[in-house]
Every structure is written in C-alpha cells, then in structure tokens.
C-alpha cells in the first residue's frame, strides 16, 4: 500500500537519510566524529536551538515568528554594549526585558489585533534591523576587558567538559517541554493551534495565549543573545542574520507541523541538532559556506512537503 510507505517515509525517512548522510561525511571528512567537533556542533546549535525552543510555542499556535533573526542581532548588541555601560548583571536583565518587550509587541499585534503573523514579524525583522543600526551607530561593539568578566561563562564556559551553552539549551528544552506538555498554558497553545474557534467556544483566552507564545519566543531569543554575546564577546550588525530561517528549518525538520496544533520541544531539539550536523558536515566536506543555505532550503521544502503529504494521506487511509 502506498500509504503505509508514505507514513513510514514521513516518520523515519528523514532520520534514515540523516543516518546515511552522517556515515558518508564520517567517511569523507576527517575529524567529523571526533569529540571536539561534536561538542563544537552542539555549541553552535545551542544558539539556534535556544531560539527554536521559544519559536516552537508560536508554531504550535499555527503562526510564525520571522523576527527572531534581527531580534537576536539587536539583543546581542544590547547585551555587549550594556555590559560595558552597566556591567554584566544589568546587561543581562536589560536584554531579557528587551526580548520580552519585543515579543510582547509581536504578541499584541498578532494575538490581540489579529494581524497576519507573517507580515507582522517580517516587518519586525526589518524594523529591528533599523533599530540595531540606530542603537549601534553602525559600528561593531566589543566587550571591554573580555578576559576578566564572568559574563564569559555563558558562551565559553564548560561544566564537566560540557559547554555551558549546551547545558543552557538542553536545560531550557526540559523546562520548555514541561511548559508545552504539562501546563494549562501549553494545553491552551495546542488547542488554539488545533482549532481556534473551538478554543474560543471553550472559554480559552485565545488572544492572550497567542500573545504569550510570542513573549516566550522573545524570551528565548534574549537568552540566545546572551550566549551569543558571551561567546563572541562582541557583536556586529549582522550577527543574527538568517537565524530565523535556520530556526524554522530545524523546527519543521523535527516534524512540528506548520498548520499548528501538534509538535513538541523534543522534536525541535532533534531537528535543530540534525540540521547542525548537516551544516557542519558540509563544511568539513569542503563545500562553500553558501551550500549550507541551499541545503537548509531544500530541507525546509522537503519537510513541508512531507507534512502536507501526510495530511493528505490521512484522507485516504
């Protein structure tokens, strides 16, 4: 039966293809499966991954957040710049507040005013690019005295050999998964994504639920910005460019449906990690940097297609 084949492909096809790819890279590129490289990939993935944890909430409500790329840039610039101005504590606090605030603006526009999520977050993407340039005056910022601040721990530290950013990412995943799966908020997020009208008829505050999902996305991006600033100890005006698509690709690759209502944090973790290994593998194999983008794009299309194919398949069981 063609259908079983389709479902099997959706369920295991990507993982199988990924396994083949890993094997191929391991043969073709030296140093791919060394501990150092694996930890490096995990550390790279921890920034996109942390953002993706938050964006998953938005995607489960059936919406998108494309603003996270330039939000990451702005927040990284803020954390680095404020580190010099008010010190690490204040910088972290301000960054978290800014992330929550930007998320809240997205949330109010999409949730309460019911504006189209794609347009709102795309507009926010370019608005924040402008704000970043205005804030930084167009020049790069660097942490002064990078050698002696404890702020370095978020991006560069490690605990028992595991990089701190990886711990933040995975710890964040545990917390996020708990919220999405176990709490009343997470249930509301699923319900709104599954059927907004029925949720309203059930007394769910749908607008507030959507708005809160965007706030979670903003918070996650702020945490990612802290990791980024700490790791680079500086920020350029393009540091977060393109992250929104990588994040989305990872989420979709994990199998969370763009139609809303289904999805999980662990799928996102798996998707993002797979994507990290693919990109790293391609680099090690000697492909140009831009090939990563091509591959991300192909992966997004393939995953969306499989998502749709499975939906259609459902009719003809």
């Amino acid at each position: 039966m063609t259908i079983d084949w389709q479902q099997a492909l959706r369920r295991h096809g990507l993982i199988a293809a990924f396994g083949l790819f890993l094997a191929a890279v391991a043969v073709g590129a030296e140093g791919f499966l060394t501990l150092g490289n694996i930890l490096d990939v995990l550390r790279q993935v921890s920034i996109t991954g942390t953002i993706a944890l938050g964006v998953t909430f938005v995607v489960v409500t059936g919406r998108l957040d494309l603003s996270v790329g330039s939000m990451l840039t702005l927040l990284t610039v803020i954390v680095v710049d404020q580190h010099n101005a008010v010190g690490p504590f204040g910088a972290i606090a301000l960054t978290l507040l800014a992330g929550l605030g930007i998320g809240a603006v997205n949330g109010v526009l999409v949730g309460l005013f019911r504006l189209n999520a794609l347009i709102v977050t795309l507009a926010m993407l370019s608005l924040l690019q402008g704000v970043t340039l205005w804030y930084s005056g167009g020049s790069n910022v660097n942490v002064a005295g990078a050698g002696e601040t404890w702020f370095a721990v978020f991006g560069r530290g490690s605990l028992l050999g595991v990089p701190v950013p990886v711990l933040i990412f995975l710890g964040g995943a545990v917390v996020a998964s708990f919220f999405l799966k176990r709490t009343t908020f997470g249930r509301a997020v699923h319900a709104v994504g599954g059927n907004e009208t029925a949720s309203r008829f059930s007394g769910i505050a749908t607008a507030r639920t959507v708005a809160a999902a965007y706030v979670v996305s903003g918070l996650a991006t702020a945490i990612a910005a802290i990791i980024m600033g700490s790791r680079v100890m500086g920020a350029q005006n393009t540091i977060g460019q393109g992250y929104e698509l990588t994040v989305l690709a990872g989420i979709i690759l994990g199998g969370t449906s763009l139609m809303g209502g289904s999805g999980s944090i662990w799928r996102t973790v798996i998707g993002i990690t797979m994507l990290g290994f693919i990109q790293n593998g391609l680099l090690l194999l000697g492909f140009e940097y831009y090939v990563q983008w091509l591959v991300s794009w192909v992966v997004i299309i393939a995953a969306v297609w499989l998502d749709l194919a499975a939906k259609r398949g459902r009719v003809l069981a």
Partner: protein
Amino acid sequence: MTDVILSVAGITKTFPGVRALADVSFDVRAGEVHALMGENGAGKSTLMKVLAGLYKPDAGTITLRDEPVTITSPLVAREKGILLIHQELSLSPELSVAENIYLGAWPTNALGMLNKRKLRADAKAALDALGCDFGPDVRVGTLSIARQQMVEIARAQAFNADVVIFDEPTASLTDGERRQLFATIARLKSAGVGIVYISHKMDEIFEITDRITVLRDGQVQGTRITADTDLAGITRMMIGRDLASYFHRAREDFRDEVLRVEGLTHASLFSGVDLSVRAGEVLGLYGLVGAGRSELVETIFGLRHADAGRLIWKGQEIPFPTPRQAVDLGMALVPESRKEQGLVLGMGGRENVTLPHLAMFSSAGVMDRGREREVFDTYRDILDIKTTGPEQPVEKLSGGNQQKFVLAKWLCAAPSLIILDEPTRGIDVGSKSAIHELIAKLAEDGLAVIVISSEMPEVLGVSHRILTMTEGRISGSFTGDGMTEQALIDAVSQPANRAVQEDIA
C-alpha cells in the same frame, strides 16, 4: 436480479484498533431509495467512503452494472457513476456554481482552454433538470447550505450518476428545504438512479425509503422492506434491544431563576429578546434554521457583543461576560457545529473534555492527567462513547461519537445553566433517547436547561416551556397543553410582530 445497479460483497475495513466493516454485503437497485441505518460508529459512513473511493477496503468486491470495479479515488468513482454527497459539503466557495459542478472535469476547446460557454450551458441544463432557483454563474459561497447541496446533487445529474449516496443530508436544512430535497430525490429515483440514504431521523426513513439495511458494529444485521417493518423493529435491529421511550421530560420542580435577559438586541441578528429560565426547568427554543437562535445564545455566552439589553444572573444584574467568565459563572454552551466550534479534532477525548476547565483539572498551572483520565472514563461510560482510548484523536470518531464528546466536555464541570444547541444532531435513536434522559436528569438535579432544536418532536418532548423565534424576535411562548405541533408551526411561520401579540402562554 437484473435491476441491481450496485452490489458490494464481503467488504472489510479495519482502522488501527477498530474493525469498522466486517464482511459487509448489500445491493442497490435502480430507482430505489435504500436506507443505511445503524448506531453511531456502526460503519455507515465508512462503507460509503469505500464506495466513493475515499477509503481502500481491506477485502471485498464492488460490482457496478454486473461488472467488477476497483474504485481508487473520488474522480474514478464519479466516472463510474457513483456520487457521494457528504454531510460536510465539499465545494469551493470562491468558484461559481458551474465550475463547482464540473470541478476537475472542465470542458476545454481545441486549444485546451476552458470552454466557458459549454460549461455554463451544461451546468444550466443540470440545474434546470433539478428545478433549481439559481443560475450557473453564482458564486457558491453566497448560497445557503440547502442550495449548496443542490449544487452537489447537480453533479449527479451532470455526470449521469447511477448511484447517489446521501450521508445525513438533512442535518442542517429547514423543513421547507427538506421537502425540496425529497422532491429532488423522487426525481432522481424516477430517472432510475439508485439512492443510498443515511439518516438518524426515523420519520424521514419511513417516508422516503423503499428498503432498509441495518449495520451494527460493522456487520450487516439484515435488510427489510420499509413497508413491512416499523420503528420498533428497526430500532431493535440497530441497538439490539427495545427502546422503552424516545423522550423524557423532567419532573416539574422549578426553583430560583438562574438566567434572565431583557431587551437583548444585536443590530443585524435579533432584537428585543426577553427570556428567563429557572433551575430545574427545560426551556425549548424552537425556530427555523436561520431564525437567530444560535446567535442569541452565543451572545449570552459572551461570544458576540450585544448592542443593548440586560443580563441577570441568579438575581443579580451583571455585565455581559467573556466566554471565560461565562464558564466560570457556571454557564455551558454546547454549540451547533461540533467540528468547527465544539472540538479540537486533532486532540484526544481526554484533552477535549477538560478544555473548558483547565484550571479545574490542574494545580498550580500543571495539568493533572490522572483526574483528566478519570473524568474521561466516567463520561465515556455514561454516554456510551465508542473510542479506542483517551488519546485517540476525536477526528477518527464517527460523527455521533464526536457529538457525545462535546456534551461530555460541558457536563463534566456541573454547570448551573446548560444551553444545548441542536444537542442530538447526527445522534442515533438509542443515544438520542439516552441524551434526552440525561437532559431530564440534569434538570431534576437542579440545572437550568435551554434546548435549541429544529426537530419539533424533540422540543415538544423534552421542554417544560417553549419559546419560538422568528427572524430575530421571540414570536411565541407556550406551556402545557399549548405546546402542540400546530401551535409551533403557526408561531414560526407568521411575521414576528403579529405573533407576539398572539402570545398564548
């Protein structure tokens, strides 16, 4: 027999955890209306979806005009002459009537371009043959449900269908529209079309069908000639026992007033509505589809904004609530459309049942799955819901079983007022009677109940008092011996303002 058009033999279809059809055989003759009956989840829709190419059977054969056929898709089914008219209509609202009739098979000219003139002319011929009162150029989205159904039926005409299947076609039709549908069915019938008719409305079955086949748990219980059987006989075949009574009215024991609305007005939908309901009372709200009853109760429940009016809850005037506040006050609204308004189809029964009461089934914001499971189990048993478990997505359930989950989600929190908008739409006789019994019991336990129904016997059977609604106004109020079919018919068919003065309560 030579006049058998379609026969199926040995059809089996299994879904994960459910055997929906087991070795089903039946046939349809030219020019007959063949009813397919059975409890919710008996397998009726599944069998029809097999015939229409939506499901692939695990085993069995389909024979059309003495030739074995394999139906792999709805398009193939249409080519072979089988057409399924779904309960949820499946037209493209943005396209015209003509484009919809020929969807997927638009006529083209020599250059491969759409031949608009032929499309129009052919569609018009099909519409005329059915006596439709609208043209081929109208956009389908602007048509009423009944007319959209006619467009689907026009497909049967246009493609010269041999077999037309109706799956619960009258669920959302007014009485007049239903009459028209029956006339159309009679026309198809005299043209030699074989018709399969699925419905839970017993009066229809006995009025228009020639034979009845009953399914139970996916198996054929038997086929009867309609004229040789009766309601009790068919019911027994369907549910395996006799049904003591079809309606239950609660003992009269009215207590304090729970809800009163005065002068409720919504500019375009209804105006000046007064009503009140007491604890222990079942208030029926009867009217034709489109009279504004659903809009009225949605406004009370906070889903729409009222333009004017007062709301008095348990003796105290309160501002109009949000849906959340309404639920917290103790109101429950079972909406009319289970798929759009009632359920999150991708979620399981457990999560659907507790959705309006997240705070109640959680502590410190964390869901208590154990208690969710308990309430799920309780209501699965009370309402006799057929499901493979608490996590089975409700989209996999039969229509009637879905409806029972909508009831469960509102009953489980013990509200003070429950508003039931068409509570038994698509529900089988046995469960219908069980739900009416439940309504009576709820009222006797001290709930205030408002029942909206377009089914006259249902309103008459369960209510203590009936308000009729016509074009957005209350047009009559009836109690006791005043509650007769004729009285209701008169009240809803007269202009609203005159009827108000004839209030005979």
